[in-house]
């Protein structure tokens, strides 16, 4: 395994994570098998893996929503034992509250923390603006398109000011056109409001387009197969020869259907 040293100390890391689920027939399904990875501060790390390999399971454990059978998550060297305001999650299915407006959804994290209405609306407005949804504060999710909904999800994760943003295939449900646009958007947002990002995808182009590094997972049970630093300058071009070279290198090492 290629393990490049990063000079900034890691902000969040997974140490020897194991996880299995009891199956229906009494067998146990092993989903994570000795997963190790570390993410540097303000790094955009992409986790690339085939469908059903355990990506959501891994991210839920990192977010403190689920617990591993063994191993631990360290956030600034402190073990994560449950949901933590410093860990924001953007869900695979957008998970917006249908009864809340864009403003209500984006500011809900602050509400749970008891931030005053004035203050949380001010902050929410900033992030709504950042994701390009100004003017839609009072809209309900059913009035928004898929891409707009995911922008709300991103603004919501940002708004409670976590150090680390965990994104679980946020663009998986979008059509190709919207997806390309959102890939550009997420980088623009990240450049403007730098955070540590762990971005999960099963799409190899998306991974190369976005990531500072790519962590490649194997099929279930997931384990880290390889780590690829991507040294291409942004904005990257899908048709660039170096882009295609990297793509080929990763593709040779995967069992993703390509």
């Amino acid at each position, binding site marked *: 395994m290629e393990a490049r040293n990063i000079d900034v100390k890691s902000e969040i890391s997974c140490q020897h994570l194991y996880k299995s689920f009891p199956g229906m027939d009494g067998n146990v399904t092993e989903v994570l098998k000795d997963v190790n990875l570390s993410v540097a501060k303000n790094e955009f790390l992409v986790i690339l893996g085939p469908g059903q390999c355990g990506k959501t399971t891994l991210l839920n454990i990192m977010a403190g929503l689920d617990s591993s059978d063994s191993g631990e998550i360290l956030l600034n060297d402190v073990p994560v034992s449950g949901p933590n305001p410093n860990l924001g999650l953007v869900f695979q299915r957008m*998970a917006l509250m249908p009864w809340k407006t864009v403003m209500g959804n984006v500011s809900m994290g602050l509400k749970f923390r008891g931030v005053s209405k004035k203050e949380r609306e001010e902050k929410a407005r900033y992030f709504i603006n950042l994701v390009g949804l100004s003017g839609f504060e009072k809209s309900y999710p059913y009035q928004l*398109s898929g891409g707009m909904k995911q922008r709300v999800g991103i603004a919501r994760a940002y708004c409670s000011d976590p150090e680390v943003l965990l994104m679980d295939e946020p663009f998986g449900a979008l059509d190709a056109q919207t997806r390309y646009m959102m890939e550009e958007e997420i980088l623009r947002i990240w450049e403007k409001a730098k955070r540590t990002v762990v971005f999960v995808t099963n799409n190899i182009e998306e991974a190369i387009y976005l990531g500072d590094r790519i962590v490649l997972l194997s099929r279930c049970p997931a384990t880290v197969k390889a780590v690829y630093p991507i040294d291409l300058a942004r904005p990257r071009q899908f048709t660039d020869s170096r882009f295609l070279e990297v793509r080929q290198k990763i593709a040779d090492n995967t069992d993703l259907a390509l």
Partner: protein
Amino acid sequence: MATRIVAAPGKIRSKNNSLVWLSAASLVVFFIIWYGLVESGIISKALLSPPAEVLTTFISKFSNRAPDGATLGAHFKTSLTLALTGYITAVVVGAPLGLLMGWYKKVDSIVKPIFEVIRPIPPIAWIPLAILWFGIGLPAKAFIIWLSAFVPSVINSYAGIKLTEPVLINMSRTFGATNWETFLRVGVPSALAMVFTGLRLSLSSAWMTLVAAELLAATEGLGYMIQMGRTLARPDVIIVGMLTIGLTGAAMAFILERFEGKLAPWRRS
């Protein structure tokens, strides 16, 4: 809204108009058949009054106590007070109980066994016991109505909150919300549609049980009025009572629906 798809208003209106006409035509046909059946003698006037006679009785009952001892307004007021007393106390207890049962396993374990036994008993089966306990006054009837409205409000709130999307619960947990906060801010709003279904079913259940209760033991009320109509062989009085019951039930359902629309503006119509 930029993304909202709005159909041409003219089209909607003309479509609605033709639907209104269809409803009106259906009512007209209904009255014509009713009129024809009675006037042609196929059904004797002693069994079914013609529409005009029902209308006359309806109007006269506003001020006339005869033949059943009270004006329509008095019967109506008695019934409505009774129904609303039983209904409101039932849903105020039932809906929160159902929500708590659906969210907290402990509450479920405590309440479920008792509830499951009570649930299949038709409210009317409680009448003898209720009369034994409370006599034939308002409390006995209110108790029966309470039971009939209680059950649907519990069941629907329970089912509604059980359907809360796990991903929304997780969402709120990532923000550090406690279980109680998640219950209030995620579980309850997401169950609201089903809670309202429960409130509507409870209302119609309360209203139907009311009439049954009044048929058995009352001195005033719409159910009592119908019963007197039978005793006095006055089909017009019976039908006026029935129509009042039907119209009131429909009006209450309509008001509740309006209220739901106000409370839940995020739901697509």
